[in-house]
C-alpha cells in the first residue's frame, strides 16, 4: 500500500439484484487531496462512496481506505474517517451544542466542540434545538459531526444540495479551510461549479463507471479541444469552423474582411459541454 494514497480502489463492483450500480471502478485518492466524484443521479456515486465509508458491502474488487479494508471497519479506523451523509440524521429535541458535544465523546482525539461550532458558523445557534435550524444550518451541523473527530479523511455526500448561492459560497470556504489544514476530502456532487471550485481532481462517473479522472480544467482535454470560430458572412448567414489554431484563423478572417469580422465568436467547450458529452447527453 502506497503511503501517499488515502484511497485505492481496483475493479470495484456492486449490484443490487439485476441492477448494476458500480461496474468496475478504479480510483486513487492521494493524501491531502480534494477529490470530487461528479455524476448524474443514479450514476453510482453514493454506492461507491458508501462502500468506501464502510456502510455497504462490495461484490468484487480491492478497496483500501487509510490502509484498511472498509468492509471490516474497526473503531480505530472509524475515528480517522469523517462522514457527512446525504440525508440529515436529526436529533430534534437536542440543541446543536448538546449533539456536537455528545458525538465528540466517541472520538479519541476529538476537537473542541465550541471551536467546531464556531468553525461551521453555528455559534449563534449553539443553544437552539436542531429542529429549529434551516436546511443549510442543519447541513452545517452534519459537517460539524463529520469533523468533530478531527478526521484524516472526510467524505461529503452531496453536501450543498438545496443551499442558496450564498450558503454554498460559505460552505466552500469551510471545505477549503479543511483542505488547507491537510484533511483529505472526497465529495460527491452533481454541481459542476462545485467540483470546479473545490476539487484538485474530478472523477466523472456515469452508468457505474468512471469515465474520466482529471483536474477540472483538463477534463475531457478541454484545453486541447478544437476551438469553434464563427462569424457572419456578407450574405447574412453564420459560418463556423473548428480550428486548432483559432488565432491564425481570426487573423486570416480579419485580412479577408479588412478589419472587423462581423459577429465573431471564438469558443471552446465549457466544462458543462464536456461533462454532458461524457455522461452521454448531447445538446
Amino acid at each position, binding site marked *: 500500500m502506497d503511503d501517499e494514497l488515502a484511497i485505492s480502489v481496483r475493479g470495484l463492483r456492486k449490484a443490487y439484484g439485476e441492477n448494476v450500480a458500480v461496474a468496475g471502478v478504479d480510483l486513487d485518492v492521494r493524501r491531502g487531496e*480534494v477529490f470530487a466524484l461528479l455524476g448524474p443521479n443514479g450514476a453510482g456515486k453514493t454506492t461507491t462512496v458508501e462502500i468506501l465509508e464502510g456502510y455497504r458491502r462490495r461484490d468484487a474488487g480491492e478497496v483500501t481506505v487509510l490502509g484498511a479494508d472498509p468492509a471490516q471497519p474497526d473503531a480505530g479506523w472509524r475515528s480517522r474517517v469523517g462522514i457527512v451523509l446525504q440525508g440529515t440524521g*436529526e436529533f430534534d429535541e437536542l440543541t446543536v451544542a448538546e449533539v456536537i458535544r455528545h458525538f465528540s465523546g466517541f472520538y479519541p482525539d476529538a476537537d473542541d466542540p465550541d471551536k467546531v461550532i464556531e468553525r461551521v458558523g453555528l455559534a449563534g445557534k449553539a443553544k437552539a434545538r436542531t429542529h429549529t435550524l434551516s436546511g443549510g444550518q442543519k447541513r452545517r451541523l452534519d459537517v460539524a459531526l463529520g469533523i468533530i473527530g478531527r478526521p484524516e479523511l472526510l467524505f461529503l455526500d452531496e453536501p450543498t444540495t438545496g443551499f442558496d448561492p450564498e450558503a454554498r459560497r460559505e460552505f466552500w470556504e469551510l471545505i477549503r479551510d479543511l483542505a488547507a489544514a491537510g484533511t483529505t476530502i472526497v465529495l460527491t456532487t452533481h454541481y459542476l461549479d462545485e467540483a470546479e471550485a473545490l476539487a484538485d481532481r474530478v472523477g466523472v462517473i456515469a452508468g457505474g463507471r468512471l469515465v474520466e479522472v482529471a483536474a477540472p480544467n483538463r477534463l475531457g482535454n478541454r484545453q486541447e479541444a478544437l476551438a469553434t470560430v464563427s462569424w457572419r458572412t456578407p450574405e447574412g448567414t453564420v459560418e463556423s469552423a473548428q480550428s486548432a489554431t483559432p488565432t491564425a484563423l481570426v487573423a486570416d478572417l480579419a485580412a479577408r474582411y479588412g478589419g472587423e469580422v462581423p459577429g465573431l465568436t471564438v469558443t471552446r467547450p465549457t466544462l458543462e459541454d464536456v461533462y454532458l458529452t461524457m455522461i452521454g447527453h448531447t445538446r
Partner: protein
Amino acid sequence: MTTTTKPATPVAATGGRRPGAGALALRQGRLETTQFLRSRESVVFTMGFPIIMILIFASIFHGEIGGGVKFTQYFITGMIATGLMTVSFQNLGIWIPIERDRGVLKRYRGTPMPKWVWFAGKVIMVVVIGIAETALLVAVAVALFDLDLPGTAARWFTFGWVAVLGVTACTLSGIAISSLARTARSGSAVVTPVALVLQFISGVFFVFTSLPTWMQQVAALFPLKWMCQGLRAVFLPESFGAQEPGGSFELGRVALVLGLWCVIGLVLCLTTFRWTTKRDG
C-alpha cells in the same frame, strides 16, 4: 493537489480523552432520556397512559373484587405491567424505526462508538423512565384510591425481579420488532395492535380468570400475562393465588417464561437488527 502535508496526526489533544466504555454508555443513556423527556408526545402517551387508565378504572369500578380487596388493588397490577410494556416494547418499537428512517442509526454506525453502547443507552432510558412511571402510578393509586403497598420485603423483592425481567424481555422484543417496520410511520402500525391485543387477552382490563380458556392459553405464550401474574403476587393477598389458572401465582413459572422471552428477544435482536433501512442496502 494542494499540499503534501500530513494531516491531523495526533498532535496535542484539544478536546480531551474519550470517556471509558461505561461512561460512554451512561452518556448515551442520558442523551436518550433527555430526548425522551423533551418529546412531549412520548411523555404524555407513554407515561400518562397508564395513569389515565387507572383513573378511569378506579372511577368506574368502586366495588370489591372479593375478600375485602378493592378492584383498584387488582387493576393496579395490570396497569403497572402495561406501563412497563409501554415504556419498553411500544416506545422502542415505535421510535427505533423513526430513528432508522431518519438516518440517526446510520450516523451512529459511522462513528467509532461501540455498537453495544447504543443498545445500552436505550436500556438505560427504558429503566429510568420505567422506574419514574411506575413510581408515579403507584403514588397516584396510593393517594387517590387507597392502594395497599406490599407489606413484606419478600413482596418488594418479587416486585423488583418481575419488573426487571419483564422490562428486559419487552425491551429486547421491542428492539427486535422494530426491524419489522419498513418505514418510520409503520412502527406504530406494527406495535400498537400487538400491544393492545396482549393487553386485552392478558387480563389488564379484565379479571384474567374471567377470560375464555383458549384466550388465557394464548396469552400465556407472551410475557405480559406473566408480568401481570407476578405483580398480582406482589399486590394481592396470598389466598388469591388459588384463583389463578395454575392454582397459585406460580412465581417459578413467571421467572421461567420471562427469562425465556429475554433469550428469544436477544436472539432476535442479534440476528435481525438493522442499522439502515432496506433501501439503504
